[in-house]
């Protein structure tokens, strides 16, 4: 008898579960990116380790590979890195509404404090505690970004000789102040020239 009851209950639960899951995803996108946006201090790149920790590690919305690809695309398109990354991930996980919610989520924490500061500008700059806190935050953010690089390397998806490309791009930026877009285009070309042979192997290993 319980079998007979279970089936319609399971069906209804399943249906509402699917509906709820999609809403959950949208809400999750907003709250996750609001959280990420609130702690991104000191520039767009500070967001990278936070997205890694929340979106890749915790929520598992992206694999490490997808995350790096998102980073690549976000750097290749104009505009703030933060906006680009949240819009892209938001879209992939929740369509256009997901994109809007994720972008709003990560932008709002930026706007409200600035508004308050704009109103009380001079006083804010003088608050000693704030200055001191940020003296501590700056090296912390640096450590975070270093850690981010390490984690991507650790994910092991980049095969040995390709690290040469990593070193070359890093040097190109640091020493020659090359345009990131150029680096990405050049890397893509190198990928096509040298990567074709590897692609088949990769898909076998997946």
């Amino acid at each position, binding site marked *: 008898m319980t079998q007979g009851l279970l089936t319609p209950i399971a069906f209804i639960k399943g249906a509402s579960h699917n509906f709820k899951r999609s809403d959950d995803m949208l809400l999750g996108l907003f709250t996750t990116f609001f959280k990420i946006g609130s702690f991104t201090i000191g520039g767009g790149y500070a967001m990278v380790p936070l997205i890694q920790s929340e979106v890749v590690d915790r929520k598992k919305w992206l694999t490490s590979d997808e995350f790096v690809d998102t980073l690549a695309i976000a750097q290749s398109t*104009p505009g703030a890195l*933060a906006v680009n990354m949240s819009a*892209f991930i938001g879209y992939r996980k929740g369509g256009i509404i997901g994109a809007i919610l994720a972008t709003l989520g990560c932008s709002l924490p930026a706007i409200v404090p600035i508004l308050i500061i704009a109103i009380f500008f001079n006083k804010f*700059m003088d608050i000693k505690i704030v200055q001191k806190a940020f003296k501590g935050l700056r090296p912390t953010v640096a450590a975070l970004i270093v850690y981010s690089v390490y984690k991507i390397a650790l994910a092991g998806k980049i095969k040995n000789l390709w690290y040469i490309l990593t070193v070359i791009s890093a*040097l190109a930026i640091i020493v020659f102040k090359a345009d990131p877009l150029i680096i990405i285009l050049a890397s893509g070309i190198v990928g096509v020239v040298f990567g074709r042979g590897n692609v088949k192997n*990769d898909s076998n290993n997946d």
Partner: protein
Amino acid sequence: MTAITIKLFLVFAKIGSFSFGGGYAMLPFIYKELVLKNGWISLKEYSDILAISQMTPGAVAISYASFIGYKFGGLIGCVSASLGVILPSFIMIVLIASIFKKFYEKDVVKAVFTGIRPGTLGLLAAAAYTVTTSNVKDIKGIIIFFAALLALLIKKIDPIFVLIAGGIVGIIFY
């Protein structure tokens, strides 16, 4: 007031459309548009806002947009400027994302990305280097830097907690 609202939107849309590669790449554009062309802020205000943006969450572009938007157009100006700086790249990204899945599986695209991934890691490594050399300035900074790194690497502490701890340590140490 509507004229300034529109102008704010357009100027920041221009800024948002032309700079590639992450927050600091936008600074030359911001300087050109806000200080040189429109004379909305002085050089000192420009660097003050940069300093503030380092202390507040979010992208540096949005910091400038909301600050200047508010200064010249009140709350509506703030919203208008912020929307302006976000919209162009938002639209572009959504377009790319919508066709991305279709092309992602193709062999050529996969090959492209086998190159792009290490390249992007290089860009991130460059950012790590630049941020570290500009943010770690004294002995205390070095200590905090390595402490944070250890916390992340060995103890696997959540980055957000590490950040909060960094702020608190800053208050105590300095």
